[in-house]
């Protein structure tokens, strides 16, 4: 893993998510897309580190939600996806889209559940928001894998199970 490139990528995407995309009502979650990318393209140890780091970045721009829920949920499901990828290779775009959708729904639900435990209110439309965001992410996500792979200097044929 090229960690400097990883840090720059996460920083840029985090700023993009908080600045440009924040004003859109329905938008993809770019950080979840990256979570799935690193979970299926890198080895398990790197996937664990990147999942928690992306979760931390999501928490940084998750205000007014408290910090912590996204770090835990991204880390947990990123790690699970990395282990799952050792058994089932997620090669084709429809499977990648499905992986993004399921991961996005699970991280969204766990994030709001953890926030609720700490006393945060849960809005009535939360499941609709999570569903729509997951849907957008799964549509856009697989197309972003190619530029991300180029930036991270990895070959797209790198789909081997680890």
């Amino acid at each position: 893993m090229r960690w400097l490139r990883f840090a720059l990528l996460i920083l840029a995407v985090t700023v993009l998510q908080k600045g440009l995309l924040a004003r859109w009502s329905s938008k993809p979650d770019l950080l979840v897309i990256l979570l799935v990318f690193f979970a299926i393209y890198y080895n398990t140890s790197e996937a664990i580190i990147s999942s928690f780091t992306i979760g931390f970045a999501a928490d940084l721009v998750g205000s007014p939600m408290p910090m912590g829920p996204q770090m835990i949920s991204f880390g947990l499901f990123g790690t699970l996806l990395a282990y799952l990828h050792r058994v089932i290779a997620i090669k084709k775009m429809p499977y990648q889209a499905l992986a993004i959708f399921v991961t996005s729904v699970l991280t969204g639900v766990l994030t709001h559940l953890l926030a609720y435990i700490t006393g945060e209110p849960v809005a009535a439309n939360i499941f609709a928001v999570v569903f729509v965001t997951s849907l957008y992410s799964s549509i856009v996500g697989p197309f972003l894998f190619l530029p991300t792979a180029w930036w991270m200097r990895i070959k797209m044929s790198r789909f081997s199970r680890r």
Partner: protein
Amino acid sequence: MARKQTKISRRMLFTWFILTGFIFLFAPQNFTSKFQLAFVHVFRWPLSIGGNLALTARTQQPLTGTVGRSEIQNRNYITTLEETLDEERKKFKKLYGLYNTYVWEGTDFALADVITAKVEGSRNELTIACRKTNGLTEGQFVLGDNSIIGTISDVSSRTASVKLFTDPTSRIAVKIGELDIKKWMQGNGNNTAKIPLVSIQHEIKKGDKVIARKNAEFLDGPVIIGRVARLKRDDKDPLFWDITVEPACDIEQLEDVAIIIMNSQK
């Protein structure tokens, strides 16, 4: 000399990270929110550029017959003035002979630029860059296009968070239209708010103005906050209205806001 490489097992790595996550989760929020505000403060320039790009992309030319933003501003200003005048008349009647002060007298405003806006979705918040931070505290009301949009929820050096009145944790005392009854407006998320427990005996109609009531600490007079967007009988209790309120201005389009600072030392 060969470099000694420390090997950490995946299980250990996972345990340490998840522990860190739980420490953040259960740490006091006023402490962890400083990290969030610090991030926005450090990256305020690219964040505001991104926000402006989004605004430019979303801004459409007003069609003939539609209400423009400046017209909304003027309408909100006039409504607030009318309410203030009405309030002042009532005061004048009560305190016979006493000359009341104008609503904004003794009030200062802190102007701030909007860095990020989270208007849709489950939580509604603005992050703003304040040009002056003297006198800013939690709970102060924030004006956007001459209408109340929310209250200050967190302040750090030159950056602050605004909890919009549509956020589910927001609760503001309001009055509806001409009715002189005090009700609490609760944020609903997704850029709307609800006013519960209003009896159907009260005559309310769609489009009625919703006014933030004066508050001894932070607001010295009534100011428009929104308008009744939807009105129907409550499904759970048909003796009450189910009132949905929308902001009096387009919060997504705001580029700057003003914080009301009462009793400031000029």
